């Protein structure tokens, strides 16, 4: 069994499901002959042919609307937006149609579409290529928003997303695409949606995070353990709908929590998580809940980019603050 990167795990999942289910279509700009600008769809055109791997004209709203029409008509499109910064023209199709066609037809029609896109900062790209606006989609009823953080979870969650009968926004953390390798069995086993993953068990503080920030969070947890502070790390994975049960259980155990996300602070998904903790787990808290996030700024260009992304140090400092409350 090979060790593969996160982006290769995406390819592996796509190839598996396209083989298993002839209704799965891959579409997007440069996904066919070029294999995708990050090679996420490499080899699929050769294997499945041009009726199933579509190089679309350059029009994002078109990609969104076509995918809706196809999904309603019995296909399972996996549509790529080349970068999250370019998903916005399709937001009308996603919010006004994909999210609500099941509801407005009382279940007569449904939209089993996956919109996947590289997201997040940290690849020294030009502007607009570093977006983390998952909160926009997390706010929309009828959608699911899923963000993997490892090759194994990218594989398992993408399979689950494709198989799910409702629309899924699948945000791939671009700076983790080739960051490291992991053994991922190509056995077609999906991971569950709507569920958190506990990556590290601990008693002293709960660190709640997703996407690329899992990397910094695990590193911070490792460093904290050397000081005798044991952090529990939860990868939320499905940002909408949230698995608050796992989060509550952890916060009730540790009494301290920090949400870590790359997206800007205000009205980020961290706000939703903390609001629910304040309402339902307040009496277990030994210290105020904190959020360590990107700043309320536009993601800076490459020269300052690394100062925007929350660092291990910011996470560790926050944990120290919480521990001082006793």
């Amino acid at each position, binding site marked *: 069994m090979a060790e593969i990167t996160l982006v290769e795990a995406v390819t592996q999942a796509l190839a598996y499901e396209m083989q298993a289910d002839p209704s799965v279509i891959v579409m997007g700009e440069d996904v066919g002959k070029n294999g995708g*600008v990050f090679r996420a769809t490499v080899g699929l055109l050769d294997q499945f042919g041009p009726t199933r791997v579509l190089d679309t004209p350059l029009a994002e709203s078109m990609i969104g609307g076509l995918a809706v029409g196809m999904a309603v008509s019995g296909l399972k499109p996996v549509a790529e937006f080349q970068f999250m910064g370019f998903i916005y023209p399709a937001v009308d199709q996603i919010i006004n149609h994909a999210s609500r066609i099941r509801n407005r037809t009382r279940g007569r029609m449904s939209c089993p579409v996956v919109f996947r896109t590289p997201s997040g900062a940290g*690849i*020294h790209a030009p502007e607009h290529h570093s977006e983390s606006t998952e909160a926009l989609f997390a706010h929309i009823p009828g959608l699911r928003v899923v963000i993997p953080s*490892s090759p194994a979870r990218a594989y398992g969650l993408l399979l689950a997303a494709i198989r799910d009968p409702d629309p899924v926004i699948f945000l791939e953390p671009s700076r983790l695409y080739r960051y*490291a390798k992991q053994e991922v069995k190509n056995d077609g086993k999906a991971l569950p949606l709507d569920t*958190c993953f506990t990556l590290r068990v601990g008693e002293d503080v709960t660190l709640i995070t997703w996407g690329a920030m899992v990397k910094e969070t695990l590193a911070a947890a490792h460093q904290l353990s050397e000081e005798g502070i044991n952090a529990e790390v939860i990868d939320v994975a499905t940002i909408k709908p949230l698995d608050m049960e796992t989060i509550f259980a952890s916060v009730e155990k540790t009494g301290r929590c920090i949400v870590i996300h790359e997206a800007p602070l205000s009205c980020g998904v961290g706000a939703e998580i903390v609001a629910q903790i304040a309402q339902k787990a307040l009496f277990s808290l030994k210290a105020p809940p904190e959020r360590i996030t990107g700043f309320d700024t536009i993601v800076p260009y490459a020269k300052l980019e690394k100062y925007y992304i929350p660092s291990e140090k910011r996470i560790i400092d926050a944990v120290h603050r919480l521990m001082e409350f006793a």
Partner: protein
Amino acid sequence: MKIFHLPDLGEGLAEAEIREWYVKVGDEVKVDQPLASMETAKAVVDVPSPYAGKIAELHGKVNDIIKTGAPLVTFDTGEGIVDKGSVVGKLETSEKKWDEGEVIIGSAKASSGNVKAMPAARVLAKQMNVDLSLVTPTGPQGLITPDDVKKFISQQAPTVSLPGETEALHGIRRVMAQAMAQSHLDIVPVTIVDDADITDLPPGTDVTVRILKAMVAAARAEPALNAWFDGKKLERKLWEEVNIGMAVDAPEGLLVPVIKQVEKRSDEELRQLIDKYKKSASDRSIAPADMQGATLMLSNFGTIIGRYATPILLPPMVAILGCGRSRETVMPRQGQMVIGRLLPLSLTVDHRAVTGGEAARFLRAVIQHLQGK
């Protein structure tokens, strides 16, 4: 990159074995150039190249069996172009292994969790150096309120630091200190005292055994005292059997072994048990099971000295009878002065669970039994 999958080499063959490679990684090949010699069930055939390009990978060694449809050779058809694998930016790329231990889907099994307390209670507790796990919660669903913390604080004696060398309490002395403090916080005690006239008891009567029997009789008269009480849930359980915990003085401190089902035992049995417990107490050989399940308590401090007392009872029990030292005394009988013998009795009950009337009637029953009625 192009992957060449092993074609069906003849009439539905499922696999073939690599006999020899004609090319190696890095070779430039032309279309139709033979790549390998493959042996099938029927023949040995040369497999020609479907593409022109550079060999990037061979998917097997000599003697490996390749299934039809499985990858055989990967070609680099990029005409020497290095795949940057991106269109903008630079991705961090490495052979690093993904650093992650065991992943639990959902929640790690949580331990019992920490206490639930209102934030204001936590702040107060921290300021006043109070351990929240010792505070009794009265808020909804077991929540500690600031008032609970205040109550706890007011019930604590101001701590005095002991000077010089001190001795930490261990074992049953330690348990006694904690149990008595908790009892003080929880119960609402009231003590009623009186004397039993035991002048007319035959000489040689085993008074202790008689007291035990008297307590059984009293328990039948007033079952409310032979009970357990839960102050949090406001529930009580009346017991049929009468299990009497007898306070026994041991070298290390106070022990309370339990004589179970006193109502069923003969006088001899009772005496044997009392003696057995006294002996076991001095060598700490009383079994834990024999220390549990008391429904009433007896403190026979009069074997040493003392008349009346306010004995302390331990929850969940609601009654403890204290027996002082019997004494000869001048007393009136039918208008005459006689010398009689009195046994002083002190009954403490938990007034949350027992009324004054129930307590008094219980004591009366004890006295009547002792006095031979």
